[in-house]
């Protein structure tokens, strides 16, 4: 008789603790308390289940069960030319992160643009001491993790990320691009990218976050961005998801708006197996404008969840939400949008629209608007539609000589374009249009005028 002995397998919790301790040595001392607190909180919260109302339609079981390890630096870092796929033009300020770590060489690229005066673009891990106070007063102050397991997890592993500070009165003309690339190793890895953006008063900037990875690998990106927009300032913000087809992506954005500030955010999801975009906007002063746009195209068994919350805390602010989803195959799209209007936030004008286009009988869309209004004299509307392509319109186009496939493509594209047309930055609009076009079932049609 032989006795077989096996090494006891480490539980997911043990793995997490091991990685946490391993990384703690490398992290900044000033972050120790924050990290420990968030780690303990995650320990209490655990991964959310579908019994949690906020996660009713999105199961993160595949993430919880994936035995993910904190991703190491890749053995072979990506080559500069691999970035070409993701950059929008050479005319952008760029920070590149590989597996969550700032990569100075890739960031500099062939010809780095000189930063204008008053613009700080740094890695969080080695931001100069001059910005310590700013970071201290904002980091983890806006993305509360108390009731958000993934934010807690990100904060627990806070180590590196991007820090952007636009000084008062500075208008940054060229876009700032934060490119987070994952290069999976043999085991499923997790990265916790962190972004802190401070736009001071009377300033403006365009910021792009891109999250990308290869197809065919299981990995997890758990991103958190905190964005503070100062008085009379504006930000044109893009979050572009180009994760690989085996990837999990949970991405939180916390927007904090000060008086008369303006935010335009576009969230484009063009990849990933399981994706959840969480956008929390806190409008904490009068006269603000907050426009949130989303477009996603999902097929196969992809699951894309857009989870929005807009808090109108002060009077005379506008918010607009327009999310458009194209769902094919067995894909699922979820939209949850909560608009909260606090007592006294009168003259609030909030409009929420979610539209899903189902291209197959097996695709699913769920939409759950939620309005909580505690103020008088407000205008709040929401509309959700789930529809299919109009067969009569297809026939009309065919009767003009356009093939059925091309007619479908044109209609699908037109559907998405309602959101894409709102993109101000032309290179981004053009690229997203092209990417979306590629993802359409046929994509053979030449683009028109």
């Amino acid at each position, binding site marked *: 008789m032989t006795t077989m002995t096996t090494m006891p397998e480490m539980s997911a919790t043990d793995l997490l603790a091991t990685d946490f301790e391993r990384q703690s040595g490398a992290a900044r001392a000033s972050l120790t308390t924050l990290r420990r607190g968030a780690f303990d909180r995650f320990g209490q919260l655990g991964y959310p289940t579908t019994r949690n109302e906020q996660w009713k339609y999105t199961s993160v079981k595949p993430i919880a069960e994936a035995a993910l390890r904190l991703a190491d630096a890749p053995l072979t870092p990506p080559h500069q030319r691999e970035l070409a796929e993701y950059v929008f033009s050479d005319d952008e300020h760029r920070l590149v992160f590989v597996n969550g770590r700032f990569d100075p060489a890739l960031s500099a690229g062939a010809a780095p643009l000189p930063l204008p005066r008053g613009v700080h673009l740094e890695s969080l891990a080695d931001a100069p001491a001059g910005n310590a106070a700013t970071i201290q007063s904002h980091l983890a102050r806006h993305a509360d993790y108390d009731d958000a397991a993934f934010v807690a997890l990100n904060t627990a592993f806070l180590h590196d990320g991007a820090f952007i500070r636009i000084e008062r009165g500075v208008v940054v003309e060229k876009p700032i691009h934060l490119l987070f690339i994952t290069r999976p190793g043999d085991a499923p890895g997790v990265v916790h990218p962190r972004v802190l953006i401070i736009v001071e008063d009377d300033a403006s900037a365009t910021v792009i976050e891109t999250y990308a990875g290869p197809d065919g690998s299981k990995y997890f990106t758990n991103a958190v961005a905190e964005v503070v927009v100062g008085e009379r300032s504006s930000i044109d913000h893009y979050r572009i998801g180009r994760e690989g087809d085996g990837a999990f992506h949970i991405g939180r954005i916390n927007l904090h708006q000060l008086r008369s500030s303006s935010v335009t955010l576009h969230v484009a999801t063009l990849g990933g197996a399981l994706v959840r975009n969480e956008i929390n906007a806190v409008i904490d002063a009068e006269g603000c404008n907050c426009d949130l746009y989303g477009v996603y195209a999902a097929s196969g068994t992809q699951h894309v969840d857009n989870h929005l919350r807009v808090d109108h805390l002060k009077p005379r602010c506008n918010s607009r939400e327009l999310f458009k989803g194209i769902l094919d195959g067995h894909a699922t799209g979820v939209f949850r949008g909560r608009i909260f209007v606090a007592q006294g936030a009168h003259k609030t004008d909030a409009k929420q629209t979610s539209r899903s286009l189902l291209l197959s009988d097996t695709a699913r869309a769920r939409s759950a608007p939620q309005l909580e209004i505690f103020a008088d004299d407000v205008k709040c509307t929401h509309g959700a539609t789930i529809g299919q392509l*109009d*067969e*009569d*319109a297809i*026939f*009309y*186009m*065919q*009767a*003009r*000589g*356009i*093939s*059925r496939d*091309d*007619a479908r493509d*044109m*209609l699908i*594209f*037109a*559907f998405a*374009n*309602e959101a894409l047309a709102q993109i101000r930055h032309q290179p981004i609009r053009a690229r997203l249009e092209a990417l979306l076009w590629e993802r359409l079932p046929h994509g053979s*049609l*030449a683009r*028109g*005028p």
Partner: protein
Amino acid sequence: MAPLLQITNLHAGIDGVEILRGVNLTVNPGEVHSIMGPNGSGKSTLARVLAGQKSYQVTQGSILYNGRDLLEMEPDERAGEGVFLAFQYPLEIPGVSTKYFIKAALNAIRKRRGLEELDAFEFLTFVKERAKLVDLDMALLDRNVNEGFSGGEKKRAEIFQMAVLEPRLAILDETDSGLDIDALKTVAEGVNMLRGPERATIIVTHYQRLLNYIVPDFVHVLMGGRIVKSGGKELALALEEKGYAWTENKADATVNVATVNV
């Protein structure tokens, strides 16, 4: 001369209800035919079956177009071969500009005909000239297809599309409805200008008034899913004067004649 269109004993319907019950019609190149009839007689059904709308089922009979079996062809293939239907209710297509739409259509058809696609400049020049032909406001080209167009603008846009695509067989389904007299004249001028020895037109209409401006070679009365009477342009005038009821007592006799013809 080989007929451009030959419809023989056509039976067709929708949702299991038979609407066309044995239509026979022959259209030669260069001819203009008008199909008249009261509401519900099957005029629009005939137009849509010719264009290939899938929700209508053909249960019996045949349609030869230019010697080919039209019923075997997809709607876009029919368009490529020169069949054009001006819709009674043109569809609105949000998010697709008229210019883009018409360019996609024109180039798809040109490709089928073995012609090169037009470049942006050639396209615009051509389109401008055709828009002038039907007095179409060029600003409409930058708007989404038919979206927010008035009834008259929609009809005019249909004829504009026809002028751009230059079909061999144009079928106008109630194009006159909703048009005031000036618009009617413009539309008719457009249609007349496109007439030619190679081309044929079928005008489906309830009223005679469009036929004052587009003079048909033949007028057919469709009732109860059959052509019950055929004649020259004077038949339209007689119908206008005496009403459709006038033809009804002659229906059986005409059907017999039609059957003999088959």
